[in-house]
């Protein structure tokens, strides 16, 4: 018999099921309150995990909808996973994915860090607060809006081309949206525009936690502001930087569909088509659900492995053995 401090169970009811029914009836109001959310989580978060099994089958709606479809579809093992490498221009799509994903994370991370540090060093309160508030706003709008704004600015008669016309009269308009060469920079920079404020706010919050007296004591010891920056500010947020980098690692592979939806068009497939977008098209327009799920699963597994690997690296090289766990 387990004896726990502050008895929350009635020792008279021995046995798991008796204890369970006692607990549930004793606190029935509380458990009833939790029930709706538990059901919802079960259906909309756990059931999709079950559906992952279709990546090992040849699932199609012809076999029936929902669970019946899973039961009736033939089992094909790892066939779809092997097909992953046979998609046209796999190498190209893979490099596109990596370059875009990596570029985004680097810009977001370094941009946010730079922003936070600059804000921290800015003594004028008005400018500091104003920039903080303003940079966070792009995070609040959806990619539909952001996509509409930047697409509008990049049209052949849009703002950017108007500026070009003014600076270099006679030059022909640049087709930013349909020229493959511009797709990667557009995607990476617009993502930076949207998320720099958020990353900045994150790092800034951790900068606020640094003890001010450290700076006072060090200046007494003759440290310059640059010394203080190098030896107090930066090391203090090292933990945050590592954790944030680890958390965002998965986004190199798990690209969100919203942004790409707004900018991708057939003209730029050569530089812009990445594996998630190709998979999305295959699944929604051609009904290739099993294959698409297999690719999605591979992506999640890959991201997971990356995070575990990076985490162990971080723990090995950091003196505090910082890591996500």
């Amino acid at each position, binding site marked *: 018999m387990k004896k726990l401090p502050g008895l929350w169970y009635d020792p008279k009811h021995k046995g798991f099921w008796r204890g369970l029914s006692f607990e549930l009836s004793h606190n029935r109001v509380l458990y009833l309150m939790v029930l709706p959310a538990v059901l919802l989580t079960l259906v909309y978060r756990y059931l999709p995990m079950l559906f992952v099994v279709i990546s090992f089958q040849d699932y199609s709606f012809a076999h029936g909808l929902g*669970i019946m479809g899973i039961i009736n579809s033939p089992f094909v093992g790892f066939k779809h996973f092997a097909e992953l490498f046979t998609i046209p221009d796999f190498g190209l799509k893979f490099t596109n994915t990596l370059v875009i994903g990596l570029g985004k994370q680097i810009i977001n991370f370094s941009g946010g860090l730079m922003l936070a540090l600059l804000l921290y060093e800015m003594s004028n309160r008005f400018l500091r607060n104003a920039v903080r508030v303003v940079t966070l706003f792009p995070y609040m709008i959806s990619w539909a809006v952001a996509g509409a*704004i930047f697409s509008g600015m990049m049209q052949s*008669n849009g703002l950017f081309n108007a500026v070009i016309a003014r600076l270099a009269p006679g030059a022909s308009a640049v087709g930013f949206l349909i020229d493959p060469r511009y797709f990667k920079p557009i995607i990476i920079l617009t993502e930076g525009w949207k998320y720099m404020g*958020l990353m900045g706010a994150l790092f800034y919050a951790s900068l606020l936690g640094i003890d001010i007296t450290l700076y006072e004591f060090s200046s007494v010891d003759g440290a310059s502001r640059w010394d203080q920056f190098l030896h107090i500010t930066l090391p203090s947020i090292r933990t945050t930087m590592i954790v944030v980098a680890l958390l965002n690692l998965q986004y190199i592979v798990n690209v969100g569909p919203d942004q790409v939806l707004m900018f991708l068009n057939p003209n730029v497939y050569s530089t812009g088509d990445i594996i998630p977008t190709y998979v999305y098209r295959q699944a929604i327009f051609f009904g290739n659900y099993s294959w698409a799920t297999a690719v999605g699963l591979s992506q999640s597994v890959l991201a997971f492995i990356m995070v575990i690997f990076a985490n162990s690296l971080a723990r090995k090289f950091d003196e505090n053995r910082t890591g996500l766990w």
Partner: protein
Amino acid sequence: MKLFGKRKTVGEFYFFILNTVILSIIGLAMILPFTHVLAISLANQVQLAHSQLILFPNPLHLNFKVYAFIFSRGETFLRPFYNTVFVTVVGTFLDLVLVLITAYPLSKSKLKYARPLLLFMFLPMLFNPGIIPRYLVVRSTGLMDSLWALIVPSLAGAYGILLAVNFFRSLPPEIEESAMMDGAGYLTVITRIVLPLSKPIMATLAILMSVSYWNILFDAVLFVSSQSRWTLQLMLYQLVAQFATPAAIINANSIGSMPAPEQIRMTAVIVTTLPILVLYAFCQKYLVRGITVAAVKG
């Protein structure tokens, strides 16, 4: 925030100037796209055809015709507005209620199955099955082409529950305990004591949820097909990414004097963004607090 003035050294002074310049550029880069969009939506059509190089609306020559056009086309522009408002209001309300009534019991450590249940709610965060399984589940539950498909799957998310549980744990238990000793049942305790104390977390959650529901795009693309159920974001998506000319999506009979497509797009952007802007302006403190807490905890 350092306490040094800019008089200490020359180097510091130059750094201050540099910092000011860089921060100002960044700040402008965040604002100017919006002012540009506003300017285009209010611009004179003749001037627009000449050049789109305008950054601010010209207060002397404001042209409200495009807005009049948009608001007169109820089916095309006001219906998405109504749909988005529906999803946001209903979604936020249901989500808030669910999160609160779920987090309250789970914050009580004396509840035997509180910890396993919390683990149950958080585990899906680790393993994301992907777009397709989610799509199939929503199809199976019969939510296709319904606005509810945008609401129900997002209800009672782990982030909100995490925030609320932490908040409830920070409340002193003595208040509830003394009330229950005086004979109050859970319902009385919650409505009379806990809820009034929960205003901060309710505000934070409500705002975060509202922004999230307002901005749903990909789920709408997946699950909503009929034009009568479009949300604002979906309408923008159709205008921009699908290169649908406004004429195509407007079921109008008199296309006669239609403003330029760019102006319609930009005006649609303003209509979609304005509520979020207003919300942000007034509640920015709560938003920042909610985001940083969620991010730091996560």
